[in-house]
């Protein structure tokens, strides 16, 4: 068996072979990283859905909370403002119930209410409203059934509104969609686009470290004094002209 000698040639070979096997992913990482750096992060948005237009609750009488449970075990209760009408959001063992906080009537989040909630986040005309039984790729950070409201604007924006609570969940536009495609290329989770801690990416990242590691080492072996001659030559001409003057 030939003994492995740690010569520059040996590292050059590693660089070449790792480049052959995993180089495509390095290329895709560089490309997707470049595109994500280029896309304006404010237009991509979507990272902070917590910002919503919260109105102050009106003072006055509210429906008696003691009448809310109707025999269910209550694990959570909150009172909030839903587009100028106060509502109770009641979490029970049977799920979440939305109740009008003045009349005590149950509220069903229909498409009109979903429209109104979405319209608070985007003034463009609404193109389409559809009901999703479970989240799609765009609303994957949220759970449960939800309304999707599509707008007629430059970004082709879509708002997602929870079916249970009428809460605005997230807004997605074309810039985000482009970003998300390249984010998928970056995190290599081609199905869910979400995880960057899976075995495939760990394996490739470890391999590519050899590509960049050997590449970095080879920098020291690939450059010689002659490569930098132009620097010295320029300096010389500069001093010469200085002398001539």
């Amino acid at each position: 068996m030939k003994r492995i000698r740690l010569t520059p040639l040996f590292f050059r070979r590693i660089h070449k072979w790792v480049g052959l096997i995993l180089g495509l992913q390095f290329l895709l990482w560089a490309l997707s990283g470049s595109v994500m750096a280029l896309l304006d992060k404010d237009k991509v948005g979507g990272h902070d859905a917590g910002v919503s237009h919260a109105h102050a609750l009106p003072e006055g009488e509210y429906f008696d909370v003691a009448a809310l449970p109707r025999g269910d075990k209550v694990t959570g209760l909150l009172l909030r403002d839903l587009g100028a009408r106060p509502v109770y959001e009641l979490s029970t063992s049977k799920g979440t119930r939305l109740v009008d906080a003045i009349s005590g009537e149950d509220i069903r989040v229909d498409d009109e209410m979903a429209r109104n909630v979405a319209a608070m986040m985007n003034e463009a005309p609404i193109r389409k409203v559809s009901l999703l039984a479970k989240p799609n790729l765009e609303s994957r950070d949220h759970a449960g059934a939800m309304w999707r409201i599509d707008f007629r604007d430059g970004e082709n924006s879509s708002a997602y509104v929870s079916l249970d609570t009428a809460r605005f969940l997230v807004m997605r536009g074309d810039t985000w969609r482009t970003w998300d495609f390249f984010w998928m290329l970056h995190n290599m989770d081609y199905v869910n686009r979400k995880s960057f801690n899976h075995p495939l990416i760990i394996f490739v990242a470890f391999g590519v470290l050899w590509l960049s590691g050997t590449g970095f080492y080879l920098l020291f072996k690939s450059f010689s004094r002659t490569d930098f001659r132009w620097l010295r030559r320029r300096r010389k001409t500069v001093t010469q002209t200085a002398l001539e003057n």
Partner: protein
Amino acid sequence: MPVSGQRSKVIVMAIRWPLLVRRTHKWLALLVGVQALLWTLTGLYMVVVHIDTIHGDHLVRAPVVEPFDLSGGLAPPSRIVAAASGASEIRLQRLFDRTVWRAETPDGPQLFDARSGVLLPALTAPQIREQARRIYTGDGKIVSVRLLTSAPQEMQSRKPPYWQVEFAGWNRPTLYLSPTTGELVSRRHALWRVFDFAWMLHIMDYDERTDVNNTLLRVATWSTFAMSLMGAWLLFWSFKRRKRKTA
């Protein structure tokens, strides 16, 4: 003769394509080499250590869900809304074993006793200690408890004030608690801090660590893309040449 001289120059350049690409690959690598190495190193760290670990999910206990008794004796929401001016949301929750109304106001969250409706004072240092003990899953001792009015580097994204409770341990777990409600604002530990540093190196924003659109990053990423594209092109050349040599 100028015409034939021009032509021979063109021929020479056509023959030297691989050399030109190799040189550009080399010079671009000189420009971005350190950063490319940092990208792969920090990238490896970020994919190896699971994001849930980074977030410190293992450091804190999920709150126990115990049903609330609404049957009577609760201060009505109207009283809380009147007391907490400008509140946009009020909710039932627990502080230690006591039921409280929590109001979200423009000045931050406030707690009211759920039965009397009386505004509760801010938590004291011993109460914060006890609350941190209840939340923290480890058994390390509390090293320090401080009320911060300006955000430390690791809490740039959260608005102070908050209590900083630091625990003993190799990873220096630190909980940040709200002074008015005792709720967990965030948690930090050594692996998070390394991740944050790695992220800074990854996106090349050395000040705020949040701007993924900075010019330095854009120049570096596209240069690296060009470098790797040329590297890919050189692969064909390198392997072809070797084959010829061995044959």
